[in-house]
């Protein structure tokens, strides 16, 4: 299963395969795109490349209570010059976790809808559950 980076959105713990990540950026200054889809937060300039920032809490239908100004984002790897450079806002990054196969489970049957679709597997950590998201499905 390999290494997974965990991160928080709205107190929910998510994880993403670390090999998919290009970088984590704090304090991004993004420009909103009026008239775009609501889950598109805006664009920002990452060393000359324009990255589209997503709000995956909106995408996944997570109840977003605090309309907090998030400024930390995870940017996914993409070929250079691909106009579709993707990043998404998170509350804060967590740890990098080594995962064993046994710890992972496919989403339980009652996790359905969009949420279920985007979650690749659920990891039973000692004290809580970690949801591994599947960027290919999301974006």
């Amino acid at each position: 299963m390999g290494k997974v980076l965990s991160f928080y959105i709205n107190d929910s713990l998510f994880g993403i395969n670390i090999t998919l990540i290009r970088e984590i950026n704090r304090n991004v200054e993004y420009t909103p795109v009026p008239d775009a889809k609501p889950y598109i937060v805006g664009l920002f300039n990452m060393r000359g490349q324009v990255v589209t920032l997503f709000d995956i809490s909106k995408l996944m239908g997570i109840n977003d209570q605090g309309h907090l100004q998030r400024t930390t984002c995870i940017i996914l790897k993409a070929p250079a010059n691909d106009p579709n450079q993707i990043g998404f806002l998170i509350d804060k990054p967590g740890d990098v976790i080594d995962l064993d196969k046994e710890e992972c489970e496919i989403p339980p049957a009652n996790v359905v809808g969009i949420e279920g679709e985007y979650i690749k597997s659920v990891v039973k950590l000692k004290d809580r559950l970690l949801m591994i998201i599947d960027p290919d499905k999301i974006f």
Partner: protein
Amino acid sequence: MLKNEEYIQSFIEEAKVHVETVENSLVNINLDLIDHEDVNTIFRAVHSIKGSAGFFDLTKIVELSHCMENLFGEIRNEELQIMGEMVDILLAANDCLKVMVDDVMNSQNIEIAEHVENISRFLKTDSKAFTNAKKADKKSALDKKDGFAEKAKMRNTIIEDAISHGHFYYMIKANLNEDLLKSDNNPVQIIQSIKSIGKFVWVKNCESELTSTMEDSFQDIVLEFYFTSVLQKSFLTEAINIHEQNIFEPSVLIEYQDEDVIKAESKLKSSMIEEAIEHGHFYYMIKANLNEDLLKCGNNPVELIKFIKSIGEFVELKLYAAEPIEYNEYPIEDIVLEIYFTTVLQKDFIAEALNIVEQNIYELKIEIDSQNEKDVPADEDHSATETKAAMPEQAEFEKPIDTVSKKNQQLTVEDSIRVHVSLLNDLLNLASEMVLGRNQLLRAMEKHRKSISGIDSVLQNIDHITTELQEKVMQTRMQPISNVFTKFPRIIKELAKKLGKEMELKLEGAEVELDKSIIESIGDPLTHLIRNAADHGLESPEDREKLGKPRSGTILMKAYHEGGYVNIDVIDDGAGINLDKIKSKAIEKGLVSSNEVSIMGEQEVLQLLFKAGFSTAEKVTDVSGRGVGMDVVKTNIEKLGGTIEIFTTLSRGTTFRLLLPLTLAIIPSLIVQVENQRFALPQVNLQEIVRIKPDQVTRKIEYINNSEVLRLRGGLLPIVHLADVLNLKRTYFDPEANEKKEEKRKTLFGYIQQNSENENPDKGAKGYFKMRAVTGILRILVIKIGSRKLGIAVDAIHGSEEILVKPLSSFIKDCKCYSGVTIMGDGKTAMILDPEGIIVKANLRFNEGNIENYDARLDEEVENIREQQNLLLFKCTGPETLAIDLSMVSRVEEIESSEIQRIGDKEYINFRQDSLRVIRPEDFLMLNKQESNGSKFYIIIPKLVKHPMGILIEKIHDTIQRRIILNHDEISAKGLVGSTIINDKIVLLINVYELFEMADPVNYKIKKVNEHKRPKILLVEDTPFFQELERNYLEEAGYQVLIANHGKEALDLLQQNNVDAVVSDIQMPIMDGIELIKRIRADKQLANLPVMAVTSMTGDLQKKTGLDAGFDVYEFKLDKIKLLEVLGKLLEERGHVI
């Protein structure tokens, strides 16, 4: 010294790839199971090397690769089994080839005999043929490297093949001077014509004529073109433009020349050369391209040979098409002449005497004895010795060592490298990033520049280098427009034939560079325009003759820089576009109604050409006139961010002008802001910016059912708010609450209406709509896309910026309003607005036929563009209000009456330590005079006069800016320009020069022009005031004056009248001065007309633009003396030309 050196780089690159292919294939070859495809691959690769090397005369490479090719040919034909030993030898040979390719310049010095020998050992049948060919080659001691017999054989196969396909075999025999050049028929063109109708085999000079050149009867070079074609002989004359008597149908194929004859001939020649050398002659060969090196420099080869005969012994002329016929990879570009001769002169003398570039003259060393010996035993032995014997070429080029080494160096320096475009794009990105970084650095360091010693120069350095870096990176994507232009001569040639018209294509500005992506996409539009020009534009030769034009039409394609854009003009001197025809056609096709057409202006009618489904060609030819095209051309050009314009004059011709941005990636755009967000709007579509002051908003913006419109020059302009289009919440600043609040009113500027209606009771507060003044200035960007116009209201405009366009990510592609993203100077991203998308989004439906009353709008426009005048209103002692144009006023001084000193009957004041005469206008003009009672006066000190005098006035009323309507009939007197009415009062405008003339006749006397001649001047001026003033100046000086209100009127007048000179304003409606002068200079009859620009814009830049455009002089319009002086001079200078 190398042939076609400019292409050698590509040859090397290509050959390297081939050598590598051979190596890989050889290494991987499976001896037990030969894959035919592998062998084929190697064969093709080696063949390609041979072909290209032959083109460059790299004989060693040719020889080695030829051997290898033969071997693989046999293997391919299964005449030979490949074995391990063979592979080793081939690999060794390939290595040798590699060495030669890597160092092409020295490849001639590399020993290849061993490899050739090794390979030849394996060769069976073909080797004999090859060596036989070599032998045959040797027969002619002076023949070129490739075997004559071999070539003849090959040519014969070509001919036989063609005949079997129904071709006829022809030969054209023509004297170079007598039959061809005299009638402007270039042999290279003949070859090209032949190629278009059949198969060109070869060209040579007639051998029998050569022998006669030995005796002194040499008159002309006789050329023989051999070719095959399906056409009958009678058609050939037309297709190739050659007399029928010059065309022969040879019954025999190309004969192998009798060996004995060749031997005898070559012996004869050899002995001749030998003899000459014994007498201290040098043996030379001139190798030159017929067109490129000779005819272009006015060097006629026949004359050349005649001259050679006068300075030495002429030996032989060889002539061939500049291309190995067997590899038709290169188009025939020229005919190569090789002239062999001996003379006592040194090389540099010959170069000078013959007017030939020294590089084209080769000194040949010939060891005739050994050569002949080698020739003799050629028959018997086996191939190995044979090839070896063939090794040293019969004549070796002597090349000085130093040039060789120099050349080598050059080659390595110019080394090019293939780079993927995406890498260049990356570089471009990074460079722009670096520019951003630099800007940030400079900003951050600004404060510390002084405090950190030495930092200043470092910053400057970084600044400089970054700019240069960005420029260089930009350059990597730039390509000359010649890449596109090169294909047009051929198209024109084909068109000329197809359409039966005579035409000539001229290309200008092929060196102008454009971004690669643009170069790639303008080919088709340009082709279309060229075809159009050839088909519709140019008349048939007969018609042209009737019109007194040269039979052959000219199409000029011109690329040049102008105002940050590259313009490409496609100009034909054909019939021009008949507007009435377009009109009737458009009505017929139902594109417009006859009512609409009747009110259309010229440009609007021309724009109809770009409508889909329009074609004016009376008969549809296969060249153009399919009714598709022009609209596609327009769309394509607009896609590139460019525009297209048409100018046409009946029976004079038509110009299509494409305006293209230099690069696609970077476009000038306006940065605008709404609701604190910035957007970039490309400037191509931006027509103007209307700025409305807060107190005027309610007056200017009107409503039609809550839709806002702006009256703009008689038309109604729909206004959309950018914020609304983008679904941004509009906010306003509430001064009471001192914060931003959401704007809830639909109609932002209509608060008066809203208030009176008060139909929003649920909003509660009646006072909400209370007279809240619009706080900000309203800015409206007027956008024009084709005939559609709209206004986009924005909050703020940040100025223009060159932005780098980046593609939209697919996640936001569905937003119609954007065409891309950019990163701005501060590193933030901004969306690039797409006006087209905004129109869609805002749901604006333009009636395509909705064209306002053109004439009315035109008048309005004239009214608006008319220069406004700044007037100084004042009074003297009388009650009359006087005015003087502010541009003539240097300053106004207040003085006490006591300062005025009388000397004789004149009054003076002390002004800046100098005495200045002051005059009272009422003394000279017909004004009421009263005793002044005040003690204070004002002095107007005019500028642009030679002998300044102050104008003494009593009171200054005001300065106003007005477009004035001048009345010069009611009140006219010397010293006055005329009268006008300002605020219901009659105001008299003073003519300062006349006033001064009256006051000081000595210094202000104008030299009058010869009364008898009275030159006719065309005055082009739109402002009535200046028109009157300048006419006054001119008429007074004795000129006859014609008046035009703008450039177009001027052109019409010029056609009807004989005019001696033109005096023109620059800023004018409809057609400005710059365009006027361009048209004048473009017109053959008017080109020499003296034209003077007079203007109120006197910046150096404007002056330069004016002079560049073709004005003879450029003067400030109010300076009478200078104006007349310059005009007089101009007439004198230019006078004799007319």
